């Protein structure tokens, strides 16, 4: 591209913004359903969200001047190219449209599920009282007048994350949308609901891998409205059949592992620390025929520790722990002095930064000894320094 560089009629400094993107994002732009949105503009940081990713926007300043020039279309005949102010065709004029000294760069981030959890906890949990009022919009107003409630867009704005990431986190937190607002169910209410649905399935002799959704809703409707039954089935179903519960004519396949885990958590809700023998005994009795208790399912739900009285299990989920990595590691080491890296995964995975491995995160706050992660201990000599 050769020619005479000239400032265009509409030239201005910072007339245009320049944003650094990835090649994937350029390809995404071409799609009809592409989403590129900037959120959090009024806050300290702004974020660019696509359909399923979140990027922090960073402004990069330079002492250099960058001129923005649109490449000339060499196929256009010279006489038809842009003319100068005198109206005389300028056959080799290169127009400078704008200049800038900054550009915006993107850093992919992982939004925090704990921020979402804390937000949802500021809303009243859905409980028996509200359910008895019928779960309607008017019941909602009566029961929780003045409470803070969040719609999907409110949560997106608060988290500055993509829609898909938010939906994934809402599923992980077992949140439910009621009259347009996202809420958590109280533990006691959720336990009763799921127990009732499971008992209904067993009483009717329906196989777990093909539960007829509409019949299940019909059988339970005297006690729980349809939207709650659908929610319970979604919590228990296999990933591949999630969402199938919305259509009443379909069957849904329940995940045996989720049923087993639910029953274990029921036990832990009554008694947070339990001996291994008592756990396996009582857990086995609670399970439907054909299902067996399995300690391997308890990763991220309960922590095994060896005591003089024998092996004990303590109910600890990742939501019960501090949200900051350093504090969380301290809390985990209080519960158990040595951890295998894979045992830490369900507790630390959600705190990883984008691009950071679990090992990198953990070793910021622990050290490795003989294949175990142990606390970093400052020696007496180091402290004396």
């Amino acid at each position, binding site marked *: 591209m*050769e020619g005479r560089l*000239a400032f265009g009629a509409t030239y201005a400094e910072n007339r245009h913004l320049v944003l650094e993107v990835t090649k994937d994002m350029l390809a995404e*732009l071409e799609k009809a359903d592409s989403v590129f949105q900037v959120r959090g503009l009024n806050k300290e940081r702004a974020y660019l969200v696509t359909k399923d990713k979140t990027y922090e926007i960073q402004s990069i300043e330079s002492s250099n*001047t960058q001129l923005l020039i649109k490449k000339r279309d060499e196929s256009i005949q010279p006489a038809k190219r842009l003319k100068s102010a005198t109206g005389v065709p300028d056959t080799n004029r290169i127009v400078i449209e704008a200049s800038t000294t900054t550009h915006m760069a993107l850093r992919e981030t992982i939004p925090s599920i704990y921020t979402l959890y804390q937000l949802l906890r500021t809303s009243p949990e859905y409980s028996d009282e509200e359910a008895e009022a019928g779960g309607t919009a008017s019941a909602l107003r009566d029961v929780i007048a003045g409470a803070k409630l969040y719609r999907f867009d409110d949560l997106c704005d608060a988290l500055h994350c993509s829609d898909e990431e938010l939906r994934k986190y809402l599923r992980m937190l077992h949140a439910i949308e009621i009259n347009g607002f996202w809420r958590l169910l109280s533990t006691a209410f959720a336990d009763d609901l799921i127990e009732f649905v499971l008992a209904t399935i067993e009483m009717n002799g329906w196989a777990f891998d093909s539960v007829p959704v509409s019949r299940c809703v019909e059988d339970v409707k005297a006690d729980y409205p349809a939207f709650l039954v659908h929610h319970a089935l979604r919590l228990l179903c296999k990933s591949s059949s999630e969402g199938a519960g919305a259509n009443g004519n379909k069957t849904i396949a329940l995940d045996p592992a989720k049923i087993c885990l639910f029953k274990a958590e029921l036990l832990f809700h009554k008694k947070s620390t339990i001996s291994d023998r008592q756990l396996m005994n009582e857990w086995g009795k609670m399970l439907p025929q054909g299902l067996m208790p399995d300690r391997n399912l308890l990763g991220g739900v309960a922590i095994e520790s060896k005591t003089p009285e024998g092996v004990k299990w303590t109910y600890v989920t990742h939501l019960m722990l501090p949200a900051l990595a350093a504090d969380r590691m301290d809390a985990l080491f209080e519960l158990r002095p040595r951890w295998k890296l894979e045992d830490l995964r369900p507790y630390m995975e959600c705190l990883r930064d984008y691009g950071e491995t679990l090992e990198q995160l953990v070793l910021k706050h622990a050290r490795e000894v003989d294949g175990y992660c142990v606390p970093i201990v400052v020696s007496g000599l180091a402290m004396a320094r």
Partner: protein
Amino acid sequence: MTRVTLLPHPDHESEWILVELQGNLSVRKGHRFPENELGDLKFVGDKPVLRIGKYRLDGKCMKLNKPMVVLDRVKQTQDDKKTGKARVHIIGKIYEKYVFAKRPAFVLR
């Protein structure tokens, strides 16, 4: 809270170039940038050369590690202001830049 949506303009496929110069550009008092000329750009082999007045700047072409997009602000409508929305058009893509980082050489002719 304002949400800004980035939308591809019909012209978003057009390719742009960044020309990077050290320092700032300024114009004489009483003059404006628009419709003024900066200088001549030509290539010697594959290297760009910029001639500004009596000075020659030798540069190089650099492919960007990550492509960039050029954004143009769209004026908010009344509806946009009420709903807290704004739009920005993506009007082009940048894959390379010409960097002039060497000290300018004085050229008599």
